[in-house]
């Protein structure tokens, strides 16, 4: 899947710019993008390391286990295939909470650990499990409650009421997450 998607993106861009005559821009952008990926990783490396460090403290203090236990009903509903007390649960719980609070870079490390744990439960290692599909679809549907960045952008561009978007934003997020869960549940039933 990703194989085709990635090749499509690259081939399509080159063909399009062949017609439109923007080959020089595409070359420059391919080179500079790979550089910015490294720059991004160096900048974000500090932040990811910081959150992983803080998360490890919470893990050792059994705070994360407590969180996952509090979320048992939700996790049971969303991930029926993941057994109680499996490590995947606590990482999924951490990832969802960090996303919920809008801490995107704090959500990535537990998210990656969660999917690695889900892979251990997976029977066919080449094929995504239902739990993985559910987890990623929910993540992509965005479960962020309040986008603090957006409020600060609106403030700096002179909005009279920068926070007026909070209520509709929460409703829209609810809507996309609901559709995401319904779809994943539907596919689960269909393919079982």
């Amino acid at each position, binding site marked *: 899947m990703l194989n085709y998607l990635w090749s499509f993106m690259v081939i399509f861009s080159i063909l399009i710019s062949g017609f439109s005559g923007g080959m020089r821009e595409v070359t420059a952008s391919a080179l500079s993008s790979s550089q910015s990926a490294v720059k991004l990783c160096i900048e974000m490396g500090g932040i990811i390391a910081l959150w992983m460090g803080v998360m490890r403290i919470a893990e050792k203090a059994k705070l994360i286990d407590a969180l996952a236990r509090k979320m048992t009903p939700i996790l049971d509903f969303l991930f029926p295939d993941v057994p109680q007390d499996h490590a995947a649960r606590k990482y999924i719980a951490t990832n969802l909470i960090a996303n919920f609070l809008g801490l995107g870079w704090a959500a990535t490390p537990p998210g990656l650990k969660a999917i690695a744990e889900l892979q251990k439960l997976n029977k066919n290692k080449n094929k995504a499990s239902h739990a993985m599909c559910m987890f990623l679809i929910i993540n992509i549907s965005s479960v962020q409650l309040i986008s603090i960045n957006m409020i600060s952008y609106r403030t700096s561009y002179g*909005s009279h009421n920068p926070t007026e978007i909070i209520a509709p934003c929460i409703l829209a997020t609810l809507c996309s997450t609901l559709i995401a869960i319904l779809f994943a549940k539907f596919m689960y039933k269909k393919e079982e």
Partner: protein
Amino acid sequence: MMFFIWLSDWMIPIIILGIIIYGLIKNVNVYEAFIEGATDGLKVVVDILPTLIGLMMAVGMLRSSGALNGLSHLIAPLISWSKFPSEVVPIALMRTFSSSAATGLILDIFKTFGPDSFTGRLVSIMFGCTETIFYTLSVYFMCIKIKDTRYTLAGALLATAAGIIASYYLALWFFGI
């Protein structure tokens, strides 16, 4: 309003403070645990770097080739029956590829139309309820070497479409044109 400014300043310190104090109460060697986690964190970064290079290269090429703009022009007539502003189409497309590029386009909208215009409010809502699909999919699936992603992409696209449509109707409902 004041509450959210307060929240944005205080949220991260409060989380870190709470976790460290809780750790100390539970007799955890917090500094050692932090260093251990940070070491793992750096390994994560090294693991995702190659995926990120491949992805950002492809997205960068797609952006500069003008393919996204072309696609926006193709989509624009399809939605002309609604009051959905055509200048939002490229932002919606870009949002699925790159968060920072979409932010740049949104700030352009704020500059041109103002954050309190219908378009400005619509993009503000839309940004909050969508995520970068391709980044999330490739970083997570490449990490565990899954080849068959099954219905993840379809679900992600559907959820994103639902978010965009909901943003449009909610913007109409809350603020009007």
